[in-house]
C-alpha cells in the first residue's frame, strides 16, 4: 500500500468491493427474475458469482491487511443486497404499482438468501485469492528479504535471552522491565 498511486488504497478497496457487489446482485437478480428476462444465467450462478467475485477481490487486495479484505467482502455483501432490494422493489420505486402485504415477506426471504449466500462464499473466495496471489506474486527477491529479516529477528531475540540469563546469573538488575513481576520488584 506504499506504492505510488493516484487513487488512495481505501478508495480502491471501496470501489472494488462495490463492483463485486453489483456483479453478484446482477446474477442473483437475474436468477430471481428469470421469468421476466430473456437472459437466465442458471441457478448455479448464485453460488459461483460471489465465489468468483470474492476471489477477484482477494487478488486485488493481496497486499492489504486481512481485516481490510474482510471489510471488502462485507461491503460486497451489502452492495449485493441493496441491488437485490432495488430489483424486487422497482415497481414501487418507479411508482407504477403497489404491493400486497405478502410480497414484502417474499422480499425479506430473498434478502436473507442473498446475505447468507454471498458473505461466506465471497469471504472464502477472497481469502483463497489473497493467499494464492500473495504466494504467486511475491518475487523471489522479496521472499528472500522477508526470510532474512525473520532470521535476523530470531537472532536478536536469542541474543536478548542470553543477555537476560547472564544478568540473572550475576544477580545484577536488568536495565529494562520485562513483565509485571519486574515492575513489582
Amino acid at each position: 500500500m506504499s506504492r505510488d498511486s493516484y487513487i488512495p488504497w481505501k478508495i480502491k478497496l471501496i470501489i472494488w468491493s462495490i463492483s463485486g457487489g453489483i456483479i453478484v446482485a446482477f446474477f442473483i437478480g437475474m436468477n430471481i427474475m428469470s421469468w421476466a428476462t430473456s437472459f437466465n444465467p442458471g441457478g448455479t450462478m448464485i453460488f459461483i458469482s460471489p465465489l468468483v467475485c470474492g476471489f477477484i477481490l482477494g487478488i486485488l487486495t493481496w497486499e492489504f491487511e486481512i481485516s481490510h479484505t474482510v471489510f471488502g467482502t462485507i461491503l460486497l455483501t451489502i452492495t449485493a443486497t441493496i441491488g437485490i432490494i432495488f430489483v424486487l422493489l422497482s415497481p414501487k420505486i418507479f411508482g407504477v404499482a403497489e404491493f400486497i402485504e405478502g410480497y414484502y415477506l417474499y422480499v425479506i426471504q430473498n434478502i436473507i438468501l442473498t446475505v447468507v449466500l454471498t458473505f461466506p462464499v465471497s469471504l472464502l473466495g477472497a481469502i483463497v485469492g489473497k493467499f494464492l496471489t500473495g504466494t504467486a506474486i511475491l518475487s523471489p527477491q522479496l521472499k528472500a528479504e522477508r526470510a532474512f529479516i525473520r532470521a535476523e529477528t530470531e537472532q536478536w531475540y536469542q541474543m536478548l535471552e542470553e543477555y537476560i540469563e547472564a544478568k540473572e546469573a550475576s544477580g545484577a538488575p536488568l536495565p529494562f522491565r520485562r513483565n509485571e513481576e519486574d515492575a513489582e520488584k
Partner: protein
Amino acid sequence: MLDKNKYGIVDIIGVTFVVVAIISAGGIYYTASTYSDISNTLTSASVGVTEFNITHYEDTGTYEFLTTLMINNPSNLDINIYSVEFNIYAYPSESFGLDLSHYIATGRGIQAGNSTISKESTSYIYQRLTTTSNSIEDNIINGATFAGLSGFILYEIVDYPEVTKKVYFGYWNWVTIHES
C-alpha cells in the same frame, strides 16, 4: 522491489472488474425496468361491461345475450386475451342480491382476431350467447329483467407469455328484452 509486470496484471484485473460491474449495473437497471413494466401492466389493465343486450326470438323461442366488454390497456406492453368466461343471471327485482339459483347460462370463448390488445389502447370484445332456457321467462317483469353478468378474462403479456392474469368483471342492471 516487486516484479513490475506482475503488479500491472493486478491493475488490469481491477479495471476489468470495474468495467464488468458497470455493465452489470446496466443489466440490473434493465431487469428492474422490465419488472416495473410488467407490474404496471398487471395492475392497470382492466375490463368492463359497456353493453349487455337480451333479444328474444319468438320464432325459435331462443334468447340471445350480446355482451360488449371493453378492455383497457394503458400500459406499454401488449396483452393477449386468450379466454373469456361469464355467467348470466336474471332476477325479477333488485332485492335478490347474488342469488345463484337464478342462473341462466354460461358463456365461454374469445372472438377470433380480437384477442390482442395493443399497448396504451382500448379494445372491445363481443360475446354472443344463445340459450333456449325458459328460466329467464320467470324473471321478466313488464318486458325487462334485472340481469346479472359475472365473469373474468384471462390474458397474457405478449412479450412474456409466462405472465398471465385473471381479471374479473360484473354487470348488474335492468335490461329490456328486445323482441324480434
